[in-house]
């Protein structure tokens, strides 16, 4: 083998990278940095910035909407284990080679295909106080559940729809691909030893796809912290009140509805820290797997 590290390709790689790097600098790096600057100012998003030090942060920590956003995010995070257990379990069932398993996999994938906005609007109809699900509940003798209009229930509805229901389809494809890589001999040995389904799942399947599960959990964290806006916008518009705010949604309301961009930038700074931690976790996972 030649020592590839010794010679370099000169200027060409930088030219090939320049479109990407220019776009990243302008649309991601600069905004992230400027958010921090703006968070110390009073600013409407246009015109002059007025330096006000840490005031925005003081206001933020005594803002009930901010803490509701944080606790809502925590509630959504609680749906990650639920989603993981359900998805791995169903994937393990499909792995058994049941008739029609590919059809199941395709059907469960449909929500991922349609995208957050269509899914959000579909469920905004389905979960209304007078929507189909409530009609069914009434028909079965229950009383109306205010899925989207009660502050304590609405965030859980979003968790069920996005974290559990939408992700099931993606997770099945993902985990089935991972399980496909497990040596069949291991399963045969487990069967000869008389291991049942759950024992095999716990002792053989789960340890063999540990990496996939770790990735899946990080992916879910990204979804909860950074991909929730479209669902909230279409399902509840952050309401009732600020009952379904997350940091993302709060930034939207403060920045683009109330034009308190300086203040919304303080929220952005907090969201940045969460995302940066998740991003580093993801990079570390990628590197342990590749090495």
């Amino acid at each position, binding site marked *: 083998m030649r020592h590839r590290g010794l010679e370099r390709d000169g200027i060409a790689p930088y030219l090939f990278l320049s479109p*990407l790097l220019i776009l990243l600098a302008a649309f991601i790096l600069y905004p992230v940095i400027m958010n921090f600057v703006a968070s110390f100012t009073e600013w409407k998003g246009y015109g002059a910035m007025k330096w006000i030090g840490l005031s925005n942060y003081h206001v933020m920590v005594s803002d009930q909407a901010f803490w509701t956003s944080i606790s809502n995010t925590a509630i959504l995070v609680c749906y990650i284990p639920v989603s993981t257990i359900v998805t791995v379990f169903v994937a393990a069932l499909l792995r058994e080679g049941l008739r029609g398993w590919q059809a199941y996999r395709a059907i469960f994938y449909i929500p991922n*295909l349609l995208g957050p906005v269509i899914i959000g609007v579909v469920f905004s109809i389905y979960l209304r106080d007078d929507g189909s699900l409530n009609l069914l509940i009434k028909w079965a003798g229950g009383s109306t559940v205010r899925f989207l209009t009660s502050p304590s229930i609405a965030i859980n509805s979003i968790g069920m729809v996005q974290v559990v229901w939408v992700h099931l389809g993606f997770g099945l*494809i993902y985990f089935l691909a991972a399980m496909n890589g497990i040596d069949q001999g291991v399963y045969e040995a487990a069967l000869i030893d008389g291991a049942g389904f759950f024992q095999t799942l716990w002792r053989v399947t789960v340890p063999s796809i540990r990496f996939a599960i770790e990735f899946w959990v990080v992916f879910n964290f*990204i979804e909860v912290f950074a991909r929730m806006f479209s669902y909230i916008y279409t399902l509840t518009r952050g309401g009732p009140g600020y009952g379904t705010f997350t940091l993302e949604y709060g930034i939207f309301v403060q920045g683009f509805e109330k034009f308190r*961009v300086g203040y919304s930038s303080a929220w952005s700074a907090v969201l940045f820290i969460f995302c940066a931690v998740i991003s580093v976790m993801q990079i570390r996972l990628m590197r342990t797997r590749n090495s």
Partner: protein
Amino acid sequence: MKKASAINAGTRLLVQLFLLALVIVSIFPLYNVIVASLKSGDEFAVNPFFPPKSPISANFVYAAVNGRLLKYAVNSLILVPSGLVLYLAVCVSAGYAFGKMRFRLKRPLFLLVLFLTIFPQLLLATQVFKLISLLHLTNTGVGVIVTWVAYFSPFGTYIMTTYFTDMPYELVEAARMDGATPLRILVQVMTPLAMPMIATIAIIGFQSMWNELPFSLLILQNPAARTLTLGIAMMRGEYGIGVPTLSAALVIAMAVPLVMFLVFQRRVTLGATAGAIKG
């Protein structure tokens, strides 16, 4: 090949029933939308669940014309493919540089790209909006396309990089021996070989841009400029739109992604896991 299975025949039936129930629960909301779209407001009021007695198409006409979905669909069909061309050019050329070229800042730059993949639109939105206004690109297709490409290319670049990294270096070496310039090697040698992965990121990019909401919401404020996704999101809040009309709008919007899935099924599912599982 028959797999070793810890489930016996009797249990199999139970499992099938369980999965079937799960499918019904999972699909019921979508079924609901489809049947509602074919009903008049009066029929929907008395028969919300079952298929319509006399299906009507009026809701579709209303959603497409009065709801302007046809116009929005045309907007999407112009913006997304244009964005996609730019996106592919950016991702393939950057992916090749990271995957097969040698330069001093490779590691830090690649880590930077990875680091920037996950930040949510709203975290960037106020500053991006300021930048777009500064460039006089609000309400323009160019404004939203450039923003989309910038936002979605780090992930596409990452996938292209892993693909190019795994390609044999001898291909580059041989082309260079023949005196080919780096640009020629990329365009004439590597790009054709990378077509399978380019097709995969094309689908990922298409889906990402087609479904994108926050940036289009902020940049395309003129109602005539809306994308289909944005149009649907805004329609939900409009006063006086009945469930049948909104359902018809949803069915129209579902058409493109579903057709894509049926045509490119294998590649769509591959794309779903491309970022996470190698090979």
